[in-house]
């Protein structure tokens, strides 16, 4: 009871933080029909600035970090990425009106990581004065890539099974048709129904998916930042530029995320209601599982409580920048309205506005 009231107090206080304030402001503004818009170029530049800053911080820190300490959290990050997709595969995908490919893609997106949620988590942690290992930035790809790869592999297995069934039926059918001189009509003007036999027995190659992820703009910026932080002396630009602008740019990004969440809600309404349920519950559950794993590292290797929160936030977050295009290419038959809608309209706001305060509150309860 005490914990709950404590949590509620903290929660209400955090709503007043600029990070959450701008997020909510964006939701409200877009819902009221505001024509406020942050130009696409500004949005992209802000995302670049945030990720390179997080990377620089991490890279500078890794220089002094004990690599062995990083091992366990990294392993847990990989495990979480894979686990989240399997959880989705066996819950969301089994629900009525949820197409299996759509469900897998959604789980993949929730397993992957959002740079902006991540940045929001770090800022809120700092706002509470909770220390954490800055090298946790390096955990991002360890969860992001396995989640996307697992989702694409699972979807591919599912699809080729399906195709197998379909083709055995189809073959029989088409023989009949041809003898009957009947040409399948959907070959004509509509774009559906092209034969894809060449795809039917393709193997999923994993390296291209990993490469695709690493080359994406989000992971590229983060890794570039880590490399520059590790190998060069970026202190002068870090302190005069990337660091002081961080919070402000993050607040603008939160505004965009808020407006976007409101704008995408409509899209989500067109797909099964279960996506909404999943999108509310999943981030919290994923974060709590990761919190638990993080506590193991806390007891075993002294991983800080702040670091545990970061791990939970990464798990709770769902990818917004690099995930969607990778999934779109990897699972083309999945409906992006389902997974992007679930993630952007609900998953991200829930992770930021409920998840982060929750994990911080638990850490404080445990720590103090």
């Amino acid at each position, binding site marked *: 009871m005490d914990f709950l009231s404590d949590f509620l107090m903290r929660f209400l206080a955090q709503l007043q933080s600029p990070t959450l304030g701008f997020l909510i402001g964006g939701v409200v503004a877009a819902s009221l029909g505001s024509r406020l818009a*942050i130009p*696409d170029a500004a*949005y992209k530049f802000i995302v670049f600035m945030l990720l390179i800053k997080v990377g620089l911080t991490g890279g500078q820190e890794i220089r002094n970090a004990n690599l062995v300490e990083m091992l366990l959290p990294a392993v847990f990050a990989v495990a979480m990425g894979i686990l989240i997709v399997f959880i989705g595969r066996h819950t969301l995908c089994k629900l009525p009106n949820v197409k299996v490919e759509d469900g897998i893609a959604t789980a993949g997106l929730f397993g992957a990581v959002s740079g902006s949620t991540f940045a929001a988590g770090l800022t809120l942690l700092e706002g509470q004065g909770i220390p954490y290992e800055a090298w946790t930035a390096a955990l991002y790809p360890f969860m992001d890539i396995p989640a996307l790869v697992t989702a694409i592999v699972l979807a591919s297995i599912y699809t080729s099974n399906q195709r197998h069934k379909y083709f055995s039926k189809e073959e029989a059918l088409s023989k009949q048709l041809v003898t009957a001189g009947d040409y399948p009509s959907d070959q004509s003007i509509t774009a*559906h129904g*092209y034969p894809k036999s060449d795809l039917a027995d393709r193997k999923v190659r994993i390296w291209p998916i990993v490469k695709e992820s690493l080359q994406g703009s989000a992971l590229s910026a983060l890794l570039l930042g880590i490399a520059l932080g590790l190998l060069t002396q970026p202190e002068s630009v870090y302190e005069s530029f990337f660091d002081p602008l961080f919070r402000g740019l993050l607040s603008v990004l939160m505004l*965009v995320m808020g407006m976007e969440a409101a704008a995408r809600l409509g899209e989500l309404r067109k797909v099964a209601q279960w996506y909404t349920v999943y999108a509310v519950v999943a981030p919290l559950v994923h974060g709590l599982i990761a919190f638990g794993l993080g506590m193991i590292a806390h007891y075993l290797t002294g991983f800080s409580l702040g670091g545990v929160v970061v791990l939970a936030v990464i798990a709770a977050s769902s*990818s917004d920048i690099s995930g*969607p295009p990778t999934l*779109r290419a990897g699972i083309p038959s999945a*409906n992006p309205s389902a997974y992007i809608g679930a993630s952007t309209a609900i998953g991200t706001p829930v992770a930021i506005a409920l998840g982060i305060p929750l994990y911080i509150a638990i850490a404080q309860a445990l720590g103090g």
Partner: protein
Amino acid sequence: MTQHASKLVIVTEKVLLKKIAKIIDEAGATGYTVVEAGGKGSRNVRSSGRPTVSDTYSNVKFEVLTPSREMAVKISDAVAAQFFDDYSGIAYLCDVMEVLHAHQF
């Protein structure tokens, strides 16, 4: 002196930009022109996570002049076969009366 041609127009999602360019190249077309476009169709699938509030032009429109109807149809069929099951898109053919000046056609 001038030359009759077909113009193939393909409007589809921005993520396919490079893949479609490759198909056009491989079909032997002498070139193509591409512009950013917005649009509405029966699907309106959006493939990118980029905010709709900032990015209103999520389609691309290709225009390819081809010397023969066949090449245009070949490109169009290849694009449709590979992508139109899963992605938004439309393809149509116009008549070009004359190619007046080109470096290679």
